[in-house]
């Protein structure tokens, strides 16, 4: 067989192609578990959830204890104005959060009262599907996590979240943090962040900062899998609401109205 130049190139080409199969396969088939974050302890059998007792929450007007506590603990910067705002837990007018409720029949002023919102830590979180780099993922206990070091800042998770639970760092947040908590990481510009259900506190056996800060006990937190937990008892014999249940995301934040 005569070895022409053309044939030589062909053989060389196929050999190269063949040699590249294995490395390529490795890249695509490697099941890469998210690097365990130091603050993400194992709590596999649990299913964390929160209930917001709205009437209790309204008993003190203008109270922002839960928001302040959360934002202090997690180094959430306070930007002036809504454009670059970052928030892990916040309020919106009740009538707007549950827009499907008939507002004509509400008590006067009720539609304007503040409703606490935070990441729903959905059982079926859309944001996790959209993230191109697995910078956001779901732990076995249901908590939807964010890896600030892997986020590329494409904001696709924000487009995917139907609850607006995610914020983006439009500029370096550090100068806007009132007092930096050295126990929790700060973020850089260009990454997305959101509520983490206080995984770092759960790992130490503490309840979330917002729940602890609420004097009226309007926030109840616990493990849904545990029949004796307070959260199970709170949700048991009452009608509860979730935000936009029709989307099938199965939020783990419940509202008692």
């Amino acid at each position, binding site marked *: 067989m005569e070895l022409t130049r053309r044939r030589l190139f062909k053989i060389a080409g196929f050999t190269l192609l063949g040699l590249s199969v294995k490395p390529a396969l490795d890249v695509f088939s490697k099941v890469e578990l998210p690097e365990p974050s130091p603050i993400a302890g194992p709590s596999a059998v649990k299913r964390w959830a929160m209930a917001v007792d709205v009437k209790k929450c309204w008993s003190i007007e203008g109270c922002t204890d839960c928001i302040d506590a959360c934002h202090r603990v997690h180094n959430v910067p306070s930007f002036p104005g809504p454009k670059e705002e970052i928030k892990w837990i916040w309020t919106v007018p009740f009538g707007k959060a549950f*827009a499907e409720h008939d507002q004509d029949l509400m008590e006067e002023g009720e539609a304007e009262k503040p409703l606490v919102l935070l990441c729903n830590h959905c059982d079926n979180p859309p944001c996790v599907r*959209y993230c191109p780099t697995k910078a956001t993922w779901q732990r076995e206990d249901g908590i939807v996590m964010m890896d600030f070091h*892997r986020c*590329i*800042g494409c*904001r696709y998770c924000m487009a995917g979240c139907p*609850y607006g639970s995610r914020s983006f760092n*439009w500029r370096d947040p550090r100068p806007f943090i009132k007092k930096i908590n050295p126990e929790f990481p700060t973020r850089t510009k260009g990454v997305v962040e959101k509520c983490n259900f206080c995984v770092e506190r759960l790992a130490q056996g503490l309840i979330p900062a917002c729940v602890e800060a609420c004097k009226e006990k309007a926030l109840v937190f616990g493990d849904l899998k545990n029949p004796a937990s307070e959260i199970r008892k709170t949700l048991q014999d009452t009608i509860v609401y979730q935000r936009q249940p029709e989307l099938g995301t199965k939020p783990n934040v419940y509202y008692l109205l």
Partner: protein
Amino acid sequence: MLNIRHTKLEEDAILLRPILRTGKAFYVAVTILSALTLWGIYAYLTQYRTGLGVTGLSRQIFWGVYITNFVFFIGISHAGTLISAVLRVTKAEWRRPITRCAELITVIVLFFGVGSVLIDLGRPDRMLYVIRYAQFQSPLLWDVISIGLYLMASSIYLYVALVPDIAILRDHAGRRGWLYRILAVGYAGTEQQHRRLEKTIAFMAVLVIPVAVSVHTVVSFVFAMTIQPMWHSAIFGPYFVAGAIFSGIAALILAMGLIRRFYHLEEYLKPIHFNNLGILLLVMTLLWFYFTLAEYITVIYGREPVQMAIFWSKVTGTYAPYLWGMFLFCFLIPLPILSFRKTRTVLGTSLASTSVMIGMWLERFVIIVPTLTRQRLVMGPPSYWPTWVEWSIMAGCFSFFIFLYLMFTKFFPIVSVWEMREGREKSMTEFAERLKTYLPSKDVSH
């Protein structure tokens, strides 16, 4: 057989003129384009230093001009390879002088499509994480794969069809000989080489069509796969593909109009070419209207509150000027111009194409931004107006695109010399033969 090494160029010498001689107009154009490009780079550096906060984007409307440009540029890319491939596959003989010019648009503009997404990233330094930590469930990964494949396929397609012309340049240009010698890969126009070339082109032309369709389908999926009102729609795939071909043809006509004028190629890019492309553009105008109607009427009839909130913001609300502008530029202006033979001239089709380009940019904007006002959530009055940074980067992108296109014409013929010659020498008889096969072979009249 076409043995290029020994043929003279006389007939098509004008096609090489831009490569051999450079006029004052070129230097003026390059200076202006470079200045705008540098300005765009300066704007990007500002954004890179300070963060995306320097744009008009906000927590609420977090995608704007950059993502609009992404969809727009990827749309334009369908000019090229797809149209040229379809015309080649269907043996449309009038394609000969326009294929190169179309394929080139595709290859260059794809870089700007990809670039627009990278400009939009909060952490561009981590962009390779998309490959390193690839999560294939994300439609963004589908984009990476599909666009990457398209870029590769269309670059090969452009290059392969360029090889015989590079060989001509090697033999005739007398300058940059080393460059052309390398790029010509020893092509001498022997019968075997020619056959191989034709085979490769035919194969690439067929391959590129499904890839091109997939590209704009998955671009639409970025939006359609979310559960946001007026994005989550099954029509988005075909709608985006149709829109892409629509704006692609417009870009091609516009590029041809400019090339014809500045390089005096009136004998090559003839009114008939503009007429034929004008008819294609007309078909796409009507198809665009059909898809838009189908999209909106299903929303209106369903009357879902979240959908209707976005709908009204487009029709009578904040975004009404954009929506009606889009309708004017995409439909009302081009339709009458393209409908009549009398106005389907070089100037007429160029004007209609300019209008379509503006209209299609607005369409992308109207698809992306209003949905982000996120009526499900109520977050304060939505407002988005791009800042000087976004406008500058956009101007930089467009300028740099034209700059690269222009530079190409200084190195390679923008009208395929060998394909023109092949048309003249070979296809005439071939076409007559083919025509015969369409007709009854025997006299059937008795």
